């Protein structure tokens, strides 16, 4: 069937099942009641601590066909997924479903587990590194399901995505199962992506290399959600968890784009007291925050909140009084980890509160402006963030579709060309965020406004910004770099791009040899 953005998606996909087709950003609504996990009881004196993963597997009688879940707050430093799957393989388990909020290069050992049948399915917001390349080549028996950060808690609350055991990597935990991310050798700050796992998994296991005396308070995930605490030698490599600092770019082209984005925000009229804002951790996104901060200072504007993945740069803005609160679903650097631990205005939020479209109050709906990136954007303003221009998986849907849908103004920042490839194209390889939720594209050659937002266009022109038609930008890119040949792709579907409401907005087909 042809869906609402013109993609021809099969009604049934082998290895996945019946497809719910994308009908529009707000067209699909929920029904029924929320799913609940099994009710558990505990007696005084019961022991939760287990001294190893293998012991836990035997104690719980974990078996083939189960679904295990993990969060990605340890990012490329994570070893918990590898440790758990190694034990599953050792004990002869097969057909394990993995639910991992994002997969990095460190998770390359999963390739071996998929090859030998230990792992047979994967749900994630995005895949990076060797695993991404292997999946693009058809590694998994069925397609990987790429969800959004809001879409995952939605699927868990709706009972569509059920988890047998949640393995929650815990930088600090006590013997009763209180868990925190702000201390310990593997401190990663917010544990926001794991909250839904703690709410909906049948069994919740905290995996820690830092068992601290009871009571660990404040806890991100409290003991009434946690069944077991497993101690391991190490959760992973702290170097891969957080970068020491995240800095504003010095690249003149990135700065020009950021400057234009900031001017567009000023011209939009949204930059006033109570302003709410989200931006990424990339150098150009931070540069946009830098310019926005400068305008807030000059205009004596006190913002409401900044949301999403938090960096030290946003922490500085909080401490300076430019924002009243930070809502932190993921802490990107050491400064944000430290701030979350000490500043009561810096709040840890769940992915559900952050972005689930099927609850009565996700925070993305309260955003004035979000600045987002793109690996490709097409003339219908549809954005790809899950594959490169070569059609190979290389990124994450993350909160991109969620924040774009929620924010009053969604700004995509990208260079017009990357190396010698046009980024503004006729049709993106994998639409992740639908054009109806994207308002502005900013490139180094000027900005384009979604024709559905004529009032924004008027404001930008009045402010003297260089407004172009998106077709004009595409033509400019092609005049510089030529028209790229269409990437050859196989027939087999290797990834499903699931929109936040649970419909399938696009598919990624097997990368050609």
């Amino acid at each position: 069937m042809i869906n609402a953005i013109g993609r021809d998606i099969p009604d049934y996909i082998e290895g996945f099942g019946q497809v719910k087709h994308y009908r529009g950003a707000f067209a699909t609504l929920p029904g029924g009641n929320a799913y609940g996990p099994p009710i558990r009881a505990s007696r005084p004196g019961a022991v939760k601590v287990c001294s190893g993963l293998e012991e836990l597997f035997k104690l719980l009688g974990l078996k083939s066909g189960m679904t295990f879940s993990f969060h990605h707050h340890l990012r490329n430093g994570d070893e918990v997924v590898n440790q758990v799957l190694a034990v599953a393989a050792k004990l002869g388990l097969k057909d394990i479903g993995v639910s991992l909020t994002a997969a990095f290069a460190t998770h390359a050992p999963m390739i071996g587990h998929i090859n030998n049948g230990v792992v047979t399915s994967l749900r994630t917001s995005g895949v990076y590194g060797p695993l991404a390349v292997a999946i693009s080549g058809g590694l998994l028996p069925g397609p990987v399901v790429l969800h959004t950060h809001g879409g995952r808690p939605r699927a868990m609350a709706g009972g569509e995505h059920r988890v047998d055991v949640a393995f929650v990597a815990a930088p600090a935990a006590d013997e009763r199962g209180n868990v925190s991310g702000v201390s310990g050798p593997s401190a990663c700050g917010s544990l926001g992506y794991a909250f839904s796992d703690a709410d909906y998994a049948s069994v919740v296991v905290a995996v820690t290399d830092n068992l601290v005396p009871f009571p660990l308070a404040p806890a991100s995930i409290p003991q009434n959600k946690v069944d077991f605490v497993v101690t391991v030698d190490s959760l992973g490599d702290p170097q891969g968890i957080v970068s020491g600092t995240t800095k504003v770019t010095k690249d003149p082209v990135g700065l020009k784009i950021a400057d234009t984005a900031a001017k567009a925000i000023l011209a939009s009229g949204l930059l006033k007291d109570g302003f709410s804002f989200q931006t990424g951790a990339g150098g150009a996104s931070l540069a946009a925050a830098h310019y926005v901060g400068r305008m807030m200072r000059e205009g004596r504007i006190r913002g409401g909140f900044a949301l999403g993945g938090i960096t030290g740069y946003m922490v500085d803005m909080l401490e300076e009084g430019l924002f009243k609160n930070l809502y932190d679903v993921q802490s990107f650097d050491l400064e944000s980890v430290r701030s979350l631990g000490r500043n009561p205005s810096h709040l840890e939020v769940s992915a559900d509160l952050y972005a689930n479209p099927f609850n009565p109050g996700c925070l993305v709906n309260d955003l004035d402006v979000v600045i987002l990136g793109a690996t490709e954007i097409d003339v219908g303003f549809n954005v790809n963030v899950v594959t490169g221009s070569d059609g190979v998986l290389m990124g994450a849907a993350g909160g991109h579709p969620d924040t774009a849908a929620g924010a009053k103004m969604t700004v995509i920042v990208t260079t017009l060309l990357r190396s010698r490839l046009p980024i503004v194209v006729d049709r993106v390889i994998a639409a992740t965020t639908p054009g109806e939720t994207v308002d502005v594209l900013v490139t180094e050659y000027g900005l384009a406004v979604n024709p559905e937002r004529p009032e924004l266009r008027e404001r930008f022109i009045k402010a003297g910004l260089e407004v172009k038609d998106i077709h004009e930008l595409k033509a400019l890119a092609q005049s510089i770099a030529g028209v790229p040949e269409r990437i050859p792709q196989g027939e087999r579907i290797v990834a499903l791009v699931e929109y936040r409401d649970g419909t399938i907005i696009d598919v990624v087909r097997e990368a050609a040899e």
Partner: protein
Amino acid sequence: MEVRRSILFVPGNNPGMVQTAGLFGADVLVFDLEDAVAPSEKDAARDLVSMALAEVDYGRVDKCVRLNSLDTFCQADLEVIVPSCPDLLMLPKVHRAQDIVELAGLLDGLEGPYQGKIGILAIIESPQGLAEAYDIARSHERLMGLLMGAEDYTAMVGSLRTKAGHEIAVARSLVVNAAAAAGIESFDAVFTDVNDEEGLAADSLLAKNLGFTGKAAINPRQVKTINDAFNPSPGEIAYARLVLKSLRQAEREGSGVASVGGKMVDAPVAKRAEKVMELAEKLGLPGAGDE
């Protein structure tokens, strides 16, 4: 370009920077074939710059190429670059008037019959060049400006190059004076600390106040600061407007003397006001133009 406040140097061997050079608001783009390019890469850089001049739309800017000096690769540079019709050529290490005459002669031989005449910008970066700056400045009709080259100059006289720039104070003024005497433009040296925005702003303002008509930039991030410094300030524009208004009024009333705020408007004040307003009009700044 009618106004040349900022001159941006772009390494001639960097395709990405050559492609995006026009995006930062510089009035003059200088594609560098000299210091930025190793001898083994000169031919590749010439081809890249030549293609860019012919193919890339840089908008309303002056396109300039910094040649290698006359005693090195200049001739080879010219053979590739001249047919691509740059607006200007920048000659480094100009020590005497004859250098400009020699380059002009080479251009006469290479320019096509329907090609406009390419202008020349001379870099004054040696003690000898500075001593002969006025002769150089009036050496040839193609010469449109002098650029102060502070790094080579201070190295040759043996002075310490500092951010404050006291060591080049006299040199700067000599360049400004030589150019003004010959009726051509003068450009201040680059400010090399690309991360010191405040330092650059102060240095640019100093250059403007010394009489330079513009300043060179070695990083696109410096362009806006330089342009802002060389733009007439709102205060300057407002004052110039008052001066011109009082002159017109005096003329209407047949009075020989105009005054603003109780001070007489003499010829230099009037001249300065006209220059400020002309520049503001060219740049389309607020407050410029007729009331």
